């Protein structure tokens, strides 16, 4: 394909033609073998942009299910006396209707709901849905690559995730119900099929689904790392990479190093369940019978699980941090404050995340002297986190800030990260943990700091890069209603939980208001939380409506770079085909944050440096 020079050639086209890097990409393809018919274009695609959209759609599907589950168990918690017979058509035998016609949620199924809510949101939505979507979409586009290092493995990554979802979804319909022993799957509850209904086939399918999920995370992560290190366009050195790419890169490293450990733990669990080994099981008494196992250690599983589990929370939050850094900088029209400090703090958080796992196990009988070590490293994470918060605030300080849905959600992210981070300082102390562990204080902490915050990062990313994905804009008015409602509503849900938690209300209890006199005075607060949760749930439905409506009927994108951003993804055509750029790959001449430099609003990365101009990326 020869590059034809149009009569009206833009500066961008001219620069890409003159300075761009010709990798002879278009000479090899006679027709596009990646996107030739409906099936290969939309389903078995190997194009990273389409795979990103597949991850996003699947993530939205799971987010809906996970959120709907939380509404059902919140109804139980807020209104334990209410009639739930109306849920019978949906939940079937999990609602028992008594003679008076009052429907009650089955307690066993309540545990299944909280377990599945955790598993689905943590892994399927905030790991695959967030990292899968934005790493796939942005890594090749922002570093100037035609596609991932291995498009085939990338497609496998999505399909392994899809299969994991199919297995997990299937487990919801078992007659014994899905797994119900908590999303952390601690043995012996998870290791003994006879321990509860959910520990039978439900747990087996949970392990199968999670193993497939590990495969997906590894294939994706290996690809992201290789692509970032190996496929950058000319001139894109590491210090010129946007914050998003740094965040996705470190996220992928965390995933590749920690998910295999979860897989090891699950394999041992599988052997204990089905082949009679005793890695985790010992001579405990089950139903009056002493179990025929010797000396296994259930704590061992906790070590293996949390060696993944703690990096996992950063696998969730780091992509959101990267997205927020980028969106804040673009909308503040200012360079990200302290770019290098931001990068080093991401690296520091990534490193520290591997040596703090036992702070999830303070109450498991861990040696208190070992706890000291983990307390210190846990509290040190506050330092890079504070650096990041300071830099986000400094980025928007004194700027001519553009308030749109994406930037509002980014500001909301910073707010949530501060509120949730502060309670992390409480929980990181092993002494305070004696009172607070397994209470609603923990629920409030991690929902704010990694649940809501990561969702806000995801929303910011969706609103910001929606035009890149679908060539149209989302509705701004609905977006702002979505933001303000969710912002206020999320605090309304989780702020009160700090108080109930400090008073000692335990998590995962089916019914605490009626059965425990000590917690009676929280009955109204619990109702309030449930009402807030329902309102927030419907606001997310509004988002989903806005999302799908905008795909087909949103305002059309007419210019390539609607937000005035400097990064390379906005140099591709509005309807970019496979290979992203129709001609040469643009080369990078400067760092990603030249906003307001030398009197110009912004200078994209492909514009060569002027004589005597300094580049920040060196």
């Amino acid at each position, binding site marked *: 394909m020869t590059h034809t020079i149009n009569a009206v050639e833009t500066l961008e086209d001219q620069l890409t033609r003159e300075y761009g890097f010709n990798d002879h990409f278009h000479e090899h393809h006679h027709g596009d073998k990646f996107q030739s018919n409906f099936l290969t274009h939309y389903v078995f695609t190997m194009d990273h942009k389409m795979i990103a959209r597949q991850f996003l759609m699947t993530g939205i599907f799971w987010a809906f299910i996970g959120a709907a589950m939380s509404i059902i168990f919140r109804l139980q918690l807020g209104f334990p006396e209410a009639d739930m017979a109306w849920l019978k058509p949906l939940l079937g035998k999990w609602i028992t209707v008594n003679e008076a016609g009052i429907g009650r949620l089955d307690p066993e199924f309540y545990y299944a709901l909280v377990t599945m809510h955790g598993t689905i949101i943590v892994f399927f939505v905030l790991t695959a849905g967030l990292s899968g979507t934005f790493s796939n979409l942005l890594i090749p586009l922002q570093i100037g690559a035609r596609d991932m290092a291995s498009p085939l493995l990338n497609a496998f990554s999505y399909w392994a995730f899809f299969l994991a979802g199919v297995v997990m979804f299937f487990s919801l319909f078992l007659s014994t119900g899905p797994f119900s022993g908590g999303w952390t799957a601690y043995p012996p509850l998870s290791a003994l099929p006879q321990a509860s209904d959910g520990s039978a086939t439900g747990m087996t399918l949970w392990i199968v689904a999670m193993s497939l999920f590990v495969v997906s995370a590894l294939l994706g992560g290996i690809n992201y790392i290789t692509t970032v*290190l190996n496929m950058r366009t000319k001139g894109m050195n590491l210090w010129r990479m946007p914050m998003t790419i740094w965040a996705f890169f470190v996220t992928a490293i965390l995933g590749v190093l920690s998910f295999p450990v979860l897989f090891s733990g699950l394999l041992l669990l599988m*052997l204990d369940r089905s082949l009679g080994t005793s890695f985790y099981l010992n001579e405990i008494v089950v139903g009056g019978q002493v179990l025929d196992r010797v*000396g296994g250690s259930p704590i061992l599983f906790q070590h293996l699980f949390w060696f993944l589990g703690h990096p996992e929370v950063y696998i969730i939050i780091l992509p959101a941090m990267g997205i927020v850094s980028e969106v804040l900088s673009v909308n503040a029209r200012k360079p990200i404050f302290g770019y290098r400090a931001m990068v080093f703090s991401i690296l520091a958080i990534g490193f520290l995340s591997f040596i703090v796992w036992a702070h999830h196990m303070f109450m498991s009988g861990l040696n208190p002297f070992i706890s000291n070590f983990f307390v210190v490293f846990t509290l040190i994470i506050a330092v890079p986190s504070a650096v990041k918060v300071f830099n986000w605030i400094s980025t928007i300080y004194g700027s001519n800030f553009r308030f749109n849905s994406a930037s509002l959600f980014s500001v909301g992210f910073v707010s949530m990260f501060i509120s949730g981070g502060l309670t992390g300082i409480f929980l990181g102390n092993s002494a305070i943990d004696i009172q607070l562990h397994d209470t609603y204080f923990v629920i409030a902490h991690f929902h704010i700091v990694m649940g809501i915050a990561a969702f806000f990062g995801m929303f910011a990313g969706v609103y910001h890069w929606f035009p890149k994905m679908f060539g149209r804009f989302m509705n701004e008015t609905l977006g702002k209603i979505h933001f303000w409602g969710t912002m206020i509503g999320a605090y309304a849900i989780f702020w009160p939980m700090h108080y109930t938690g400090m008073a000692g209300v335990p998590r995962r209890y089916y019914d605490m208001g009626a059965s425990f006199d000590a917690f009676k005075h929280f009955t109204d607060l619990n109702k309030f939380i449930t009402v807030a949760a329902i309102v927030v749930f419907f606001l997310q439905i509004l988002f989903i409506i806005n999302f799908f409506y905008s795909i087909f009927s949103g305002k059309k994108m007419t210019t390539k770079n609607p937000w005035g951003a400097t990064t390379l993804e906005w140099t591709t055509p509005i309807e970019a085909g496979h290979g992203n750029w129709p001609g040469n790959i643009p080369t990078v001449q400067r760092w990603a944050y030249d906003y307001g430099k030398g009197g110009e609003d912004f200078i994209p990365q492909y514009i060569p440096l002027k004589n005597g101009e300094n580049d920040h990326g060196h």
Partner: protein
Amino acid sequence: MSTITKTDYNRSKIHPLKLTLWVGIGSIIMMFAAFTSAFIVRRSAGNWYEFELPSLFFFNTLVIILSSVTLHYSFQAFKTGNEKRYKALLIATFVLGIAFVVLQYMAWEQMTAMGATFTVNPSSSFVYLISGVHAAHVLGGIATLVTAMIHAFLLPYKPTPRRTQRFELVVQYWHFVDVLWLYLVIFFALNL
């Protein structure tokens, strides 16, 4: 294109697939690190049967080291144009690889005969499990050796950069499972 003079670009010369393999090897290492750490944590919890590692485990080690040596010289012969030696040593590697898996199976039978069965105690369960997962990775390596042999015997001999590259991936993965086994056998010998 020649107008770019400002920056001196150093494009990385590692092939993306090779880097992909290395990162993948990194994650396999993490899996075995988890297994062996679990082994140590579990052992320190007590109730741990001690037994001697069967002799075949050590004999096996020699076999897999020898297979690495033959594959190394096969690759050298491939690059220097010695077609006969390249093919002969490739077959030798394949045979040694199969021998390793068979011997591994016999080593497990030796263990069972000693009374160190799969479920008697976590100490023996761990040895079966870890060496079993390693054997699965060797089988994966044998599958890549089969691909390399298909290339060797069905395609005309031509050491193009692309074929050298692909063969090198097989070689590196095979050396990795070899070194991994050395680590495991030393670990077992010291910690059982």
